[in-house]
């Protein structure tokens, strides 16, 4: 059993080369976005500008840029805004926005980055329900994004077959789906 590298042809043809270039460009674009979120052209639906910035900052602390883009670059804050605006039932939306407005007494963005990380770490270890819900939304938003699924993790839209026991090294990463 020697699975093909998922979602990749045997040889890198021209189309694949272009695809990879596009991904790199997407990463660069995303990198720009990371420094000035929320990006121009996007307006949050239920968050205000500061809240969007705070959510993007928290998400980036949860899943930061490493060799691959972080949560901010893939627009996790946009996903969270869309979920709260479009998916959450009225009562949950109200609770979320109330908790967000009260988050860290409104002082979060004024903290230094290392202070922010320390504060979030405390909430995380205490399993603070609101923080854990933000964390879950961040994970969903990130790992179901194109970058999260295909560059950070492994994704095969059309596996073609099933092998039940292969070396992990052959797959390399967690399957996104």
């Amino acid at each position, binding site marked *: *059993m020697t*699975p093909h590298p*998922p979602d990749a042809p045997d040889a890198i043809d021209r189309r694949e080369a272009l695809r990879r270039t596009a991904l790199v460009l997407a990463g660069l674009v995303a990198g720009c976005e990371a420094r000035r979120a929320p990006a121009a052209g996007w307006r949050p639906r239920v968050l205000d500008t500061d809240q969007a910035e705070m959510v993007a900052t928290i998400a980036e*602390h*949860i*899943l*930061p840029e*490493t060799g691959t883009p972080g949560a901010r670059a893939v627009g996790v804050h946009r*996903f969270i805004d*869309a*979920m709260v605006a*479009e*998916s*959450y*039932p*009225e009562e*949950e939306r109200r609770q979320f926005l109330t908790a967000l407005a009260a988050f860290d007494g409104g002082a979060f963005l004024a903290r230094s980055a290392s202070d922010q*990380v320390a504060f*979030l*770490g405390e909430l*995380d*270890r205490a*399993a603070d329900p609101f923080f*854990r819900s933000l*964390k*879950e939304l961040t*994970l*969903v*938003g990130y*790992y*179901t*994004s*194109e970058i999260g*699924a295909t560059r*950070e*993790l492994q*994704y*095969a*839209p*059309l*596996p*073609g*077959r*099933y*092998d*039940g*026991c*292969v*070396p*992990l*090294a*052959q*797959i390399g*990463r*967690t*399957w*996104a*789906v």
Partner: protein
Amino acid sequence: MIGKDEPYDAIVVGSGITGGWAAKELCERGLRTLVIERGRHVEHGKDYVTEWLKPWQLAHRGRGEQEVYERDYPIQSKNYAFGEATRHFFVSDREHPYVTPEDKPFRWIRGYQLGGRSLIWGRACWRWSDLDFTANARDGHGVDWPIRYADLAPWYDHVERFVGVSGERLGLAHLPDGEFLPAWEMNCAESVVKRGIERAFPGRHMTLTRVANLTQAHLGRGPCQARNQCARGCSFGGYFSSLSATLPAAQKTGRLTVVTDAIVHSVIYDERRDRATGVRVIDAKTGATREYFGQIVFLCASTLATAQILLNSKSPRFTTGLANSSGEVGHNLMDHISKAGARGVVPGLEDKYVYGRRPTGTYIPRFRNLGARGDAKVGFLRGYGIQAGAGREGWARGADEPGLGIELKQRLREPGPWQVSLQGYGECLPRHENSVDLDPARTDPSGMPLLRVHCAWGENERAIREDVKAQSAQMLEAAGCREVATWDDDGPPGFSVHEMGTVRMGKDPKTSVLNAYNQAHDVPNLFVTDGACMASSSCVNPSLTYMAITVRAVDHAVSELQRRNL
């Protein structure tokens, strides 16, 4: 009047798994056949609108719109196959109401479209055995089946050859082997669990689920691409559905007519000739009524809908519903208990993983009350099988564990431990009081009398549930699993989507509605071959048996028609 000039040889109500089979067999036997579907037209391939969407192309990344689900899909959204990519193949509960007593919820999962629930089914294909067909006779619950395994065996063969069922031969009398395509593969953790269970419990087995997903190309369909997203629809025809398989075969004969958006209101009965002469339908778009006529009528509308149609087909002779001289129409509703079992972690195998997404799991066949002399005393009647599956935890585990930042991101790049889960599917006894009837005053938006469902689990089902949990935990412990814990998400009846039994078969017209060939005792040219016909529920998934029963009934109907007995 539309339809009056078209007397069909046969009318089939419903296009789901049994309606599709009835249509195929009737057409291939030379009958000009009309299939009536209450839902919209769905074209194989073209209308699988979410099939190619990647996770990031779903507006809510698969999480859907919770607010809409709570308002419009409070029942459907509880089904495992329901989601952002499949919602369009489930009904809106708001638009299609039924009622239950406050303390007896029933989850009726429905798909109103051409192909019905065959688009979204679980695809498990098990044969029933004489352990099942003799169960009522042995313990006195329900009425004896008028058929035995030998009556159905050749029809199981017939059906399996066309469907394409992958699976392993086990040689078990109570789970008969069939004609199988190569089985799917167990993953490393499942192989460990299998060895552990089979070593610790001689006589117990763990096997790949026999499933209608094609492990190799079959009759121009498939093979399955191992995406495990069947309920979105599959343009490869990788799994069996009315749209991928039976309706195209019927179409090929040139004898098939399909009408969609037509809700069957009632069966028309001619008292003078003592025959069903056709059906009355309500146009789902305009609300107008019209009639279709045919020589024989097959009701394949699904267990509850078929009962609803019969109960609504009243005439001076059948004042409580067509073919209901026994008073049993609507009664003896069953489902399977499920949503209970045990979980654990399979230690080790950290350097192993899987490639592809197998569209099925594994199965531990029934091991309780097999009728052998050495049977353990278990405190309940009948039995259960266990659906099992293992897999490595993915990125989602990160939400429940502490950890942030680079460390978290690196950790989630690698899959987590191998988790194994066992879930029992248990037999439900037929009981008269578990039933459906029609609200005498209220109608649903289409104009059909509102269906009322009265159904609850009994003591025997509760006892099975407890044994499922205890045995599942014991087996996982014996297999060397860690962190073994039982689980129980007690679900109301209907949840397993194996509802059956409202128009039961039986030997005696006084206590059953259908004879051994699914012909109404009271009305010889009326056949019911969907889940409504079942006299007991077995513990194994029923769809394959519905299919075998349908093709057998068609064979009989066509012979009787040729002999001019209908």
